[in-house]
């Protein structure tokens, strides 16, 4: 009996702590005013991962400011939902609590959403990163969003090729799929378009969270002669740390990673999901609950290249980057990877 009690106590304590780490309301709803728009988001890693989840959190904070504060937009989130079953339960909970928009921020949540969305026809859902809104399956309350991350990848690649002295460039990726693959393919294309003789070594470490392996992959690249590196997903902070130790240049993506290593981060492709979120909110307020897919691109401002002000980037490299951005926007540069 005592054992059972203790077990229950422990599990309860543990779950309580896990829950504390997660969902957190930003502000209690104001009582008298008109009801604010309510968004809930479920994301696979932490809101300060300097990558995928942080980009969504930052966008929601910005959207809240743009819309006029917590009185107009209220949002809650569950982070670290790397277990898809837990994420599915959270999505269902939020939907049944009557949120206007429930965002499943992770391609792995797709099949869960496909099951949940039809049960809540009055609620809007959004799923990213993907272009699939499940419209063909007769589901009409799901929006889709994606980042054309190959575009910023290409721009980063152009700069990387110009900055590399050794002609060897290392890439640390998580799993060869989705957003990571797009970015890396674009990066590679950008390097090779600028310097066809350059060698781009790509390493997929098979994990989104194994920082130690990401660090060791970066060391491997350096040993293979790389003097410029990039990488994507939240475990790359391990690789950035190694790059910093060895004075190897780094290009970031998904969020601004300059603060972690101001001396070696050259530039970051930064996602601004408000470009996708704003039209969703407008649509929902008009009564359209789904069926649209949105893309972040350099042209619509959803993707931007942010240069690290602390890094002394040669003017001709920056010019080349700006020209490349222009080229991608006006269509004169076509990136030889598909937008899926």
């Amino acid at each position, binding site marked *: 009996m*005592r*054992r059972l009690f*203790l*077990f229950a106590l*422990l*599990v309860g*304590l*543990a*779950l*309580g*702590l*896990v*829950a*504390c*780490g997660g969902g957190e309301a930003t502000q209690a709803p104001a009582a008298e005013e008109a009801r604010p728009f309510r968004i809930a988001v479920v994301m696979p*890693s*932490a809101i*300060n*991962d*300097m990558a995928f989840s942080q980009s969504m959190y930052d966008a929601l904070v910005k959207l809240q400011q743009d819309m006029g504060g917590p009185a107009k937009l209220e949002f809650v989130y569950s982070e*670290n939902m*790397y277990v898809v079953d837990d994420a599915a339960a959270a999505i269902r909970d939020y939907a049944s609590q009557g949120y206007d928009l429930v965002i499943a921020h992770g391609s792995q949540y797709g099949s869960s959403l496909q099951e949940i969305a039809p049960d809540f026809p009055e609620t809007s859902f959004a799923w990213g990163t993907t272009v699939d809104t499940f419209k063909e399956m007769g589901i009409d309350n799901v929006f889709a969003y994606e980042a054309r991350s190959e575009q910023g990848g290409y721009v980063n690649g152009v700069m990387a090729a110009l900055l590399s002295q050794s002609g060897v460039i*290392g890439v640390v990726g998580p*799993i*060869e799929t989705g957003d990571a693959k797009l970015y890396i393919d674009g990066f590679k294309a950008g390097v090779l378009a600028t310097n066809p003789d350059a060698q781009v*070594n*790509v*390493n*997929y*470490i*098979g*994990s989104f*969270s*194994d*920082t*130690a*392996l990401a*660090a*060791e*992959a970066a*060391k*491997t*690249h350096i*040993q*293979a*002669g790389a003097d410029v590196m990039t990488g994507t997903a*939240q*475990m790359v*902070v*391990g690789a950035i*740390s190694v790059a*910093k*130790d060895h004075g190897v240049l780094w290009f970031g993506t998904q969020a601004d990673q300059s*603060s*972690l*290593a101001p001396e070696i981060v050259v530039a970051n492709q930064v996602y601004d999901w408000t470009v996708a979120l704003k039209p969703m909110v407008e649509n929902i307020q008009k009564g359209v609950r789904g069926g649209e897919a949105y893309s972040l691109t350099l042209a619509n401002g959803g993707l931007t290249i942010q240069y690290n002000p602390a890094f002394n980037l040669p003017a001709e490299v920056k010019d080349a980057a700006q020209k490349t951005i222009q080229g991608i926007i006006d269509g004169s540069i076509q990136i030889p990877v598909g937008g899926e």
Partner: protein
Amino acid sequence: MESWGNILLGIAASGIRLATPYLYAAMGETLSQRSGVLNLGVEGQMLMGAFAAFYVAYRTGSAGLGLLAAVGVGLLMGLAMAFVSVHLHAEQGISGIGFYLFGLGLSDLLFQKLLGTVDSVQGVPDAHFPLLSDLPVLGELFFRHNWMVYGAYALVPLVWFVLNKTPWGLMIKAAGENPHAADSLGVSIAKVRYATVTLGGVLSALGGASLSIGLLKIFQQNMTSGLGFIAVALVYFGSWRPVGVLLGALLFSLVNALQLWVQVLGLPIPADFAVMAPYVLTIVVLVLVVQRARPPAALTKPFVRE
């Protein structure tokens, strides 16, 4: 293109580094399992150790104080595990999972409240031995690692010595094999198990610190990413013997380092297969080479005097 010699050197040096956190955690786990307690909370203890070391090193600028903090946190986590599994006779597997979730959640919560964003520290420095570190091949292989790496390898003979050459080792093994007989001879099973489980907590926490302020110099939520569970598996792989555990950790880490190179060299092997290699090979070796060792007879069995 790199010469093959350099590549082999790179693989070996990477493997030696990658094995470090496993060794700390697995040596602690070896001690506690030999005394009859399965501690599945290793991962949680590592995360708490990693955070405590990072936070203190970050605030004070002293890696030494960071290590001390990891020891302190590991001690508390280990004591708590011992209290639950030894004193209260709780089911070990379940309470271990409870401690894992506890460590995962608490380290995450503290990280968000106290730090808020990923940042870096100076951490434990790399070793530099006069002459030795500058040797061409051997220098890179053995004499330029982070100090935490040497600590991990020093633990192996130490744990072997304690288990096989000291009366304390005898008591540990007796507690794990036949606690009733040992008890009738006046060995306090509770004391022995309290000591091993607590020490296990300390070593796991140091394993976490070897990541956060040793090898990586950053902290991120869930940064151990299943490493603690692999450490527990390595104890089984090594048949509860320190040297066997060392060989398992090195094998796993070397193949992991090898697969990184396979991808960097652009060999025509899909990345997914390369990533699988360490796991597949470890299982193959386990089946083909490692003898079917018998676990400590009293492993996972709470001791209740009859």
